[in-house]
């Protein structure tokens, strides 16, 4: 049980990593990207292809995957999603849902429905005893990576010109436009940054579990639950949300493997019922 909780906490780091891109895109554009999970899975397959070409360790290829995903994100935003903005809630939902269908079935066509994983070597199995619990080095590394990525996003948002522009778009779109901000470019930049983080998350995803083309929606849902549990508009809240979700899933699985996902959903619904603003919720802001 203690092990289940410890592993749940570390799993929460992965969920925070998964959720960061969703939060960023929603914060800047007020768009919920329904293809979020599928794009993360796409990153796993991009890593798979790169490993096939170079033979390198997936962890070494992580920056390259992030860069490729960032470029795809920028292009996707400028080429498609930008055209859906400013006409209400439905167009971006429908279009990102369409992208989700295309990615899932495109991956199915190219890579079949067989599950595939990324091999990161002996680190995957190494573990360490911390007090009463045993945890894996890789989950520990994932958690640390999540903290580093969230800190980097925090610095980007608070201390760079790009971050200032993102926050301006988030707070007051019309005024930001009046100040001469190029929304088309900056929306694409925000999607690019989000997809870089999704690239990192996708590599981790491929190492820690086997992936199949159809699992994307599950990860959209976990990311979403982390965001809502943590509270909208709070990056560090998302980490807490991810931890709560991870612990719920692992404790659920401890009692019955079939309850893992269900326990996560039920905790999410309980938060929605009793604390709808989430644990650290603020009004929608970055």
């Amino acid at each position, binding site marked *: 049980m203690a092990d289940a909780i410890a592993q749940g906490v570390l799993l929460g780091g992965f969920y925070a990593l998964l959720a960061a891109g969703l939060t960023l895109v929603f914060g800047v554009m*007020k768009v919920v990207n329904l293809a979020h999970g599928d794009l993360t899975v796409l990153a796993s397959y991009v890593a798979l292809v790169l490993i096939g070409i170079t033979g390198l360790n997936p962890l070494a290829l992580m920056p390259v995957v992030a860069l490729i995903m960032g470029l795809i994100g920028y292009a996707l935003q400028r080429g498609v999603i930008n055209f859906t903005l400013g006409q209400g809630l439905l167009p971006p939902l429908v279009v990102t*849902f369409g992208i989700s269908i*295309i990615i899932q079935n495109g991956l199915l066509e190219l890579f079949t429905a067989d599950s595939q994983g990324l091999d990161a070597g002996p680190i995957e199995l190494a573990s360490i005893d911390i007090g009463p619990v045993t945890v894996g080095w890789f989950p520990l590394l994932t958690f640390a990576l999540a903290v580093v990525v969230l800190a980097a996003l925090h610095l980007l948002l608070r201390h760079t010109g790009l971050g200032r522009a993102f926050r301006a778009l988030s707070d007051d779109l019309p005024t930001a436009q009046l100040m001469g901000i190029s929304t088309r470019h900056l929306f694409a930049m925000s999607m690019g940054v989000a997809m870089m983080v999704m690239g990192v998350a996708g590599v981790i995803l491929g190492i820690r579990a086997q992936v199949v083309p159809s699992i994307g929606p599950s990860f959209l849902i976990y990311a*979403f*639950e982390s*965001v809502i549990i943590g509270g909208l508009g709070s990056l560090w809240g998302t980490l807490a949300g991810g931890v709560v979700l991870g612990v719920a899933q692992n404790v659920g699985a401890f009692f019955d493997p*079939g309850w893992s996902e*269900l326990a996560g959903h039920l905790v999410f*619904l309980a938060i929605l019922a009793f604390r709808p603003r989430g644990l650290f919720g603020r009004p929608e802001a970055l």
Partner: protein
Amino acid sequence: MTTTQYAIRSATPASRRFTVVALLALAGLATVPMWSSNGLMVSLTELLILVVIGQLWNLLAGYAGIYSFGQQAYIGIGGYTMLVVADQLDLDIWVGLVLAIVVSGLIAIPSAWLLFRLRGGYFAVGTWVLAETYRLIVKNNETLYPSGTPQPLRSLAGLGESRFAITFWLSFALAVGVILGVYFLMRSRTGLALRAIRDNEMAASTAGVAVRRTQIMLYLAVGAVTGLTGAVFLLKAVSISPDSFFSIDWTAQMLMIVMIGGLGTIEGPVVGAAVFFLLRENLADLGSLWFIILGVVLIVIMIRAPRGIWGLVRARTGVELLPVRKRLEMTTTPGGQS
């Protein structure tokens, strides 16, 4: 001198002619079981169910600004209610249909209570998560999903060959009922409120429309009818599993039908269902490629022609076959004799 008469009407010449044609077509459709093969009846049943789910999703999204990606929750709840009532409680399938409405409506109440706390796009994902939650609850239940295999609806055996006709008539009645229901709802005071919400939520609220309450009531009603649709669908599908009845594919179909046909019109989902059905009949063999085509079509329509086929027709011709708006008509008669 001339006299001018004013009248407030909804009907147009086109809609009057259409009413006659539609009545004839419906009378024709009602006779299908008397002469058609079982295969044709099954196909038409599928088409009618597509019309119903499209119409119901359009009622939420096109008229009330409720973007649910989790209506499969009610398809599943209705289907499983039918399974429990007909097979496990050994009651009549008619009782199953009624209880499908009741149970779905009842489950929709706490669902709405939770979901309407979420705003905008997050509402959409929330509905999806809730549908997933219901799927997992059923999947982990030993009586509903024993040994992880799809459950056949055994009660159907008692109906013999007549089950094709019964299922057809049920889906036919459901489709006609839903279309007429939407039509009369839209012509009512509530319909006016819903159209106001669709056009501008904030303005509607300022004008005195109880936006949230209207939306929630509609969500409950649509949930109940979607549950009935799930029960009817089980009669057609014969067997049920949580992964198929609670599948997000239902939402994908609803979206396709409504986007192809035209959001926010009654005619749109009917046209959309017919087009989607023909596409599916011809392209579904392509497998994953068919779904890629669907995704591309969805994106292209949303960006290039967000009003769908019927929106284009109406913009070109101004035709409304089921008009819900009231118009002021002036007729001027040249006088003098009197």
